[in-house]
């Protein structure tokens, strides 16, 4: 699992590659927590899951943990380019209710920056 982070204004873009499970999620948790701490302005988390090949409930748990923080900040959670398998897991977990699917990062950034949120 590899993850890379980018901030654009109030948005944090997290790009995941590989498999997010019990073994790999602690690393992701640590890195995303660091990003949240060093960028207290972050309200929007954009998860680019195009290259995420696998996720189970251990991986989802870490994302949900971040969601709770976002909520306190009045923010939002987006999943970009989720494949059908990942969409289904998100739907089943209920994470989908509190988040949105989007076709591209650019699309979300446009909405965020355009003040449409």
């Amino acid at each position, binding site marked *: 699992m590899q993850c890379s982070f980018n901030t654009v204004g109030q948005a944090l873009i997290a790009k995941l590659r590989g498999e997010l499970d019990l073994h790999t999620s602690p690393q992701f948790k640590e890195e995303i927590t660091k990003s949240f701490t060093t960028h207290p302005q972050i309200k929007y988390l954009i998860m680019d899951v195009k290259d995420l090949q*696998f996720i189970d409930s*251990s991986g989802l748990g870490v994302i949900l943990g971040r969601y709770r923080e976002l909520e306190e900040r009045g923010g939002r959670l987006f999943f970009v380019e989720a494949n059908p*398998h990942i969409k289904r*897991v998100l739907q089943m977990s209920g994470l989908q209710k509190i988040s949105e699917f989007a076709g591209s990062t650019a699309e979300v950034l446009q909405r965020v920056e355009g003040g449409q949120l």
Partner: protein
Amino acid sequence: MAERNWVKFEFPSDTRNVAFARTAVALFASQLDWTLDELEDIKVAVSEAVSNSIIHGYQLGAGIVRVEVEYEGSKLTIVVEDYGQGIPDVAQAQETGFTTIPEERMGLGFTFMHEYMDEVLVSSEVQKGTKVILIKEVPQRPEG
């Protein structure tokens, strides 16, 4: 209709082995005629069961996880077993959202197993261990 075949494997309770276990099971299961989506479902279910043995059964400590995969005809049976702390109430454990580690976990492991497999059977004895049986049949497909 596939002639019976099986594999048994065991490995130490180590988070590195979760990916190995789910991929090896899918590899063996692929001797049957699943779609890629169905194989993905099997992977998720195995990942949940093996992760549970490691986190809950052995509380991330030492132990052995055993996995058996068997098929006959169109029926696939996967058994995931640990000799860890066991589950006092298996019905409650399988409720969506129930978890004994609420700070960290979502209580969705068993829910995913039930969702992705046709049948899930859990037996457990406190201080002895837990056995999860996951069953899935290859769906009848229109001849193509």
